[in-house]
Each structure stands twice: as C-alpha cells, then as structure tokens.
C-alpha cells in the first residue's frame, strides 16, 4: 500500500519534471506568440527580448526539474 502510493508519487513527479522541461521548448517554438515589435522594452522589440529572457527561464526550468525526485 505504502509502496504503491510511493510509486504514484514518483510517477506524478516525473510528469511535473517533463512538463518543466517541455514548457520552455513549446514557448520557444511557438513563433506566432512573439513575432511582433510591441511591447517594446528598453527600446528592444518583443521578438528579441522575449527570446533572450526565455534563455535564463529555460535554464531555471531545468534546475527545477533536476530538483524533483532528488531529495
């Protein structure tokens, strides 16, 4: 009983892990979402700053995914 719920927990953790790894990829490839000039930030069009910001976000998502199931 305990072992079964443990397995289900791990399975659930595995899903969250995959979601964390997948989400930045989907955003990065969802080009129509960010293919525009406004909103401009510090003079930089959305197309450029969105993708630049997504880089550290994706790295943090991997860090978070890595934390799951390790403790």
């Amino acid at each position, binding site marked *: 009983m305990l072992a079964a719920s443990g397995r289900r927990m791990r399975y659930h953790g595995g899903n969250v892990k995959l979601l964390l790894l997948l989400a930045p990829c989907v955003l990065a490839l969802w080009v129509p979402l960010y293919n525009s000039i406004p909103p401009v930030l510090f003079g930089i069009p959305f*197309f*450029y700053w969105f993708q630049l910001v997504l880089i550290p976000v994706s790295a943090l998502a991997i860090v978070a*995914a890595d934390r799951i199931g390790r403790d």
Partner: protein
Amino acid sequence: MFDHLNVVATSVFVFFFGLVSVLGFVAARWKAADLDHIDEWGLGGRRFGRWITWFLLGGDLYTAYTVIAIPAVVFAIGAYGFFAVPYTIIIYPFLYLTLPRLWAVSEKHGYMTAGDFVLGRYGHKGLELAVALTGILATMPYIALQLVGLEKVILALGFGGQGIMAHAPITIAFVILALFTYKSGLRAPAMIAFVKDAMIYIFIIAAIVIIPYELGGFGAIFDAAGRAFDARVAANPKLAAGLTLQPGQVGPYITLAIGSAMALFMYPHALTGALAASSGRAIRFNTMTLPAYSFVLGLIALLGLMAIAAGVKVETPQDAVPQLVLWAFPSWFAGFCFAAIALGALVPAAVMSIGAANTFTRNIWKPFIRPQMSPREESLLAKLASLAVKIGALAVIFFMPTRFALDLQLLGGVWMVQIFPAIIFGLYTRWFSGWALVIGWAAGMIVGTSLSWTGTAWVPVHALKWDIPLVGDVDLGLGFAAYNGLTAVIVNVLLSAAFSLALRSRARDETSPADYQDRALA
C-alpha cells in the same frame, strides 16, 4: 602586405595568440597521464569535472564561425538569423534527458564515439560505418569554416598580400594548432577554452554596453535597422527581411531550430566534449549552465543590427562584426576582440579534428583495416589522423571557393541529423534493427541532399510539396517550407520503423538496461 596593418591591434592579437599557444603545449602535463593511450589523448581520460566541461563545451559549440555567421545573417535579413536562439533553448532540456544515458553506457563499455555505441548496441558494422562516415563528412567543412572566421579577423587587422602570402597568417596559426593538438590531445583545447571564453565574455559585455551608448541606445539601433530593412525590401520586393519574421519565414525558422538542435550532439566534436566529462552529474550541471553561452550568442546576433545602425561598409555580410569592432573600439581593444574570435576558431577546430580522428581510428581503420590494434597504435593513428584532417581543411580553404565550404557545412547539418534515430532511439530501445537503420539513414541522406539542390544553389529549406519520381506531385497542403534535415529524418524514421518490423535483428546487444542509468541519480 603590411601597408595597411593596424600595428597596435595586431600586437595585442599576436600577444594573446602566443599566450594560448604556450598553454596548448603546457596542457600535455595537465592531469598528467600516458598520452600514448587513445582514451587519454582523445578524451582527456574522461576526467573533466563540471567546470572544465562547461568551458570546453562552451568553447567547442559556440564557435568563431558562429560569432561571424549568425550576426551576418541578422545583418543581411534581420529576425531570421535569430533562429539560433530557439535552437539553443530547446537543446538543453533534450540533452538533460538523453546525454547522461549516453555518457553512462559509454563509460561502462569504453565507447569514445557514436560509432562505438551503435556497434555495441546493434552489433552492426555497416551501421557503425554509416555513422562514422557521416560524422567525418560533416566535420571537415565545419573545420574549414573555422578557418574562414579566422581569416576574416586577420583580414580586418589589415593584412594584404597576394596568392600564397594571403594565406600565410592562417597557415601559421593552423600549424601551431596542429602541433599542440598532436602533442596534448583534448587537454589543449580544454585549457585554451578558459582563456578564450573569458575573452569572448569581456568582448561581448563591452560591445553590448559601449556600442548602444555610442549609437544612442537600443531604440535608435532598432529604428535604424528597421528603416534599412524597409529600404532594402522596397528596392527588392522579393527579399524577405525585417525586424520580425515575414510570413514565409516562420516555418523555416521553427523547423531549422528543431533540426539543428537534433543534429548538434550527433557531431563528433560535441560528443567528444561531452564524453570527456567525469560523471553524468557533470553533464546535467552543464545543461543548466551552458545556456549562459546561448544568451551571449543572442547578444552576438544583435551585433548584426548594430552594424547596420553604425553604417559600416562591408564586402560581404560576414565582415559586419569585424568592421563593427573596428568602428566602435580603440585599436588595442579591437585587437583583443579579434584575438577572442580567433581563439574561438582554434578551440572547436582542435576538438573537431580530435573527434574526427577518434572516429576514423575507432570506427573505420580498426574494424575494417586492422582489428588487432594496441591502444598505443590507436593513439598514434588518431594523432596522425588529426593532422590529416587539418591539412584537408586548409586545402579546402586554399583551393576551393569559400562558397564550397559553406554549402558543405549546410549539407553537413542535413546529413548529421540522419544518425539521430540510431543514437537517440538506441538509448531507450533495441526495437530498431541495424539493417533497418542503415536503410533509413541512406534514404535520409538521399532525400535531404536532393531536397537541398535547387538546380542553381544549395538551400536548407524546401516547400512541403514535392515532385517525386514515379509518384508525381505530392503536396501536404501545409503551405510552409521546412528544414530539409527535418523532412529527411522523418522519412528516415518511417523507413527504419517499417524495415525493423520486417527485418528482426538477432545480432548481439552488449549493453543492458542498467548500463544506461545515471549512477549519480540512482
């Protein structure tokens, strides 16, 4: 040939180049071991910890050619060149899942190359040969392009010269590179990478602060670039250029990012850098930290727009970054930046030649010519092969038009992704059989290559409608063009799966499921 030489910049350039050359030779003593063993020469004894791996892979993947070519595309047509950003975003989550498995099985069985792995997994020499040939074929033009990057900055220093003298500086640089790679193996680029990466970071931080200041801020830069693209499109309505993607560019942008990400770690130099890591943990750490280089790459891409705003004059878009550097910085710092780019050519060129040499030795010479090689003989052969690869790359630059190397590099990516099914699926299952994967590979190579030829030029993308011999016109009706590497690998996977159903494999699989587990996590 020295009439227009920028003496200050050249002095700084030569100083840093000399410094790393010394480092390259000293590296032989670093983590001292018997360099007559191929595992030591060609893989640094698999003892590179997380930070050394970070510098090595960063220096290895984000090459001088990248620093020149990505901003060149942005300079020429704008947003499209930014595909390198989604490409480098999607690659790390993928590597986080797959690369530690490949590292674990390779460490367990002593694999040094992708060919070693497929031979152990599928027990199929033909597939091993296909994987090895693809790697070598795709790597040669890539090394040649590093030389193009090197030549661009040397040209910007003001070297003139005719005929053979025009190539004298890169020949000297390459001879030095060849010698210390021969002596120190993978330790040389690993050690040089520290200096090179630090210099690239200083160059980019300075550029991203100082150049926008000189040009009146990012707003002014994007305004000027946007006006320039509008003017170019007005002059040539067929040109697809702009600050955002044009409708026809969206499909290629997405598929190029996916296909390039699938191809990157199939290259021998990328795998060499990764397999030299000391643990699966070190690799996972790097999938979280290497995006720092991707961020720098994104900033480097913006240099293309800054070059437009600065109004630099160029003969080809590839001169945009060197000319921008000369425009923006005093001579001494320009020399520093050029040295950073030049070293950015040496690190990958060294790792690429080592990766190609390991592949040639282990997967072509050993199985097909001389199976009874001792580790000492393997090491010597790999060293000689690394020299041969570099001489080949120099010959390409000397005797072929640059266009040739560029076309081959473009095709190299299309070809490289064709070994993706054998390697990546193989990390999870032995359901596919060796012969089926060879058939899929061959079909992928043919489809990818033929899609890329327009009759007058090689291009990486093709509309998703084809005139297939014996079948006729086929149109998927999706209305966009896609990267040929991706289209071809889909054909590859479908055929591999179909033939795997028909041709079940009874060949031995020397790996077991436990071999793929990352011990750091288990």
